[in-house]
């Protein structure tokens, strides 16, 4: 009897339910909306879930050694990922950054051999590669209109060939004079991670709170509009190519110190592809105009956790590649969907909160700090 009346009431109830729900969105759904408004939120959620999952199920995951593994895995990719985010936001890409990674420790070694103190040798190597490689990439791309995918493919091969030629494709030891400084540049367990994280924070501010960042977004979002507003679009692009090359050089030197060897098989195209995976999983679109440094950091953290967790469970690294590929696809589909929602204004309903757009990352940093 009561069952019957319930089913009879169900249809009018569903009609009445909609306005009810609209009257007062629950705290939970409002919190969910707030959360989803942050571009980085979904990656953060995935990182947390994976972290908890492996902590509970996998022996030795929750240990210092394992955390060092994660940190050392993600750090160099994060550093070149910063450059890739900058370029992708302004609508370009750089494949050559992995080959700059290969070349840079050889360049440092050369300068140390010529009698320059290690610290300055590192600075000179980074600046030189940034200006020369980034400059060529940027000028060829902007002035001659060659797509940056092609430009940097070509310069990548040139740099790689040059590296193999001058090094005879042989490993060399780090200059002994440099080893003392190595603690600051990657040979200490956490030093590379600290570099990566500090750089992410600096470049997050650059991208969201400075003119350079604003113009980078403008150039990638609406090239013609940016140019008509008087922004010097080529300068912005060339500058970002230079920063990307410089970051690649830094990553290469840090890795050489970490591995205690200068190796011609370091870097190359593979590191660019892994970094791109982190960039994309972090929520940076290929189309230009949007990207996030915090997302990149979280994206690389997700990959680091996966790699470390799989390792500890004895799952082969071959299977890790399958997961990596799937994660890229899922992230891209989710990002496209979320962007559409955001643009439709549905995720901006409570748009009166001050933390929106440029400053969105602040809340996320707080959330990371809690990790």
């Amino acid at each position, binding site marked *: 009897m009561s069952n019957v009346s319930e089913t009879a009431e169900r249809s009018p109830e569903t009609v009445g339910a909609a306005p009810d729900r609209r009257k007062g969105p629950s705290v939970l759904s409002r919190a969910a909306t707030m959360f989803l408004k942050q571009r980085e939120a979904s990656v953060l959620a995935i990182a947390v879930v994976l972290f908890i999952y492996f902590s509970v199920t996998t022996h030795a995951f929750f240990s210092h050694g394992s955390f060092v593994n994660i940190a050392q895995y993600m750090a160099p990719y994060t550093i070149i990922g910063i450059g890739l985010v900058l370029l992708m936001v302004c609508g370009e890409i750089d494949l050559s950054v992995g080959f700059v990674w290969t070349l840079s420790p050889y360049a440092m070694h050369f300068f140390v051999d010529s009698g320059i103190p290690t610290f300055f040798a590192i600075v000179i190597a980074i600046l030189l590669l940034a200006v020369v490689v980034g400059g060529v990439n940027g000028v060829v791309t902007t002035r001659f209109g060659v797509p940056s995918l092609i430009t940097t493919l070509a310069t990548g091969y040139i740099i790689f060939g040059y590296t193999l030629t001058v090094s005879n494709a042989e490993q060399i030891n780090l200059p002994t004079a440099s080893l003392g400084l190595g603690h600051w540049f990657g040979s200490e367990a956490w030093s590379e991670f600290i570099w990566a994280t500090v750089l992410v924070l600096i470049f997050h*501010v650059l991208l969201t*709170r*400075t*003119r350079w960042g*604003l113009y980078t*977004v*403008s150039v*990638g*979002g*609406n090239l*013609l*509009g*940016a140019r*008509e*507003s*008087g*922004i010097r679009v080529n300068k912005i692009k060339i500058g970002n190519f230079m920063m990307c090359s410089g970051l690649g050089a830094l990553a290469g030197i840090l890795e050489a110190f970490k591995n205690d060897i200068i190796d011609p098989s370091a870097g190359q195209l593979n590191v660019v592809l892994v970094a791109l995976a982190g960039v994309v999983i972090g929520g940076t679109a290929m189309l230009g*105009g*949007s990207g996030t440094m915090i997302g990149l950091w979280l994206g690389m953290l997700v990959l680091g956790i996966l790699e470390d967790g799989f390792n500890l469970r004895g799952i082969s690294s071959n299977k890790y590649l399958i997961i990596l590929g799937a994660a890229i696809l899922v992230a891209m589909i989710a990002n496209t969907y979320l962007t559409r929602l*955001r*643009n*439709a*204004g549905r995720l*901006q309903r409570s*748009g*009166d909160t*001050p933390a*929106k*757009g*440029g*400053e969105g990352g602040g809340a996320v940093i707080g959330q990371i700090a809690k990790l």
Partner: protein
Amino acid sequence: MSTQPADDFTTATSDDILRVEHISKRYGAVTALVDVSLRLERGEVLGLIGDNGAGKSTLIKILCGFQQPTSGRIILNGEEVTFTSVTQARSAGIDVVYQDLALINQLTVYHNMFLNREPVRWPLLRNKVMRKQAQEHLDSMGIKTLRSVDVEVASLSGGQRQAIAVARSVFSDAKILLLDEPLAAMGVKEGAMILDIVREVKERGISVIIIAHNYGQVLEVCDRVNLLQGGKITYDKYARDTSVEELTNMVVAEYRKALEERQRAAS
């Protein structure tokens, strides 16, 4: 009686902020503009009306410095000027508002309003200052359609984007505003909002040229109307002396004439 561009042109007064004299534009064999002359009085709203292909876009591109005329002169505030770039025209006070070209979708409304003129306390942008000033400026122009200046432009409607684009030009101290099809693809309500903004712009003493091919609604705000047909100004009248019917007849008559000529040529 109705076609008297030359006569009207000679009545030009010294109060013209902008005069275009005998402008022609050829692209190779194609002639887009033939000896076009028009004048814009200080503080008036001029409707530049013409069907597709009449040469409206070419004229706008020349006025805003995007292209240079093949021959003819542009006189701004009584002095001859030549613009070789959009930036140059803009710094002279001539600003063009395209519906979609102008704004950066991925930036907030206030960043768009300040683009390339951002206040900075090195190295950081002064977002609070920008947000406040942008909001005040929009309020002062009576633009109340936005929920907040914090939203990304991508989430705005066509009318809102147009409103922001016009507001930005006013904000950047434009003296002459060229509005290219400001009501294109817009509903009646949004169109009315844009026309209100145009009235506000006029009230601030800014001279406006509105380019439109659908002139019914536009005529409401215009002081004067010029008709551009086949690359020539064929008609120049004060809006109070004309009507939508008359303009329509003009355009249709031109179409009929062209059709007859073509038939005659064919036979």
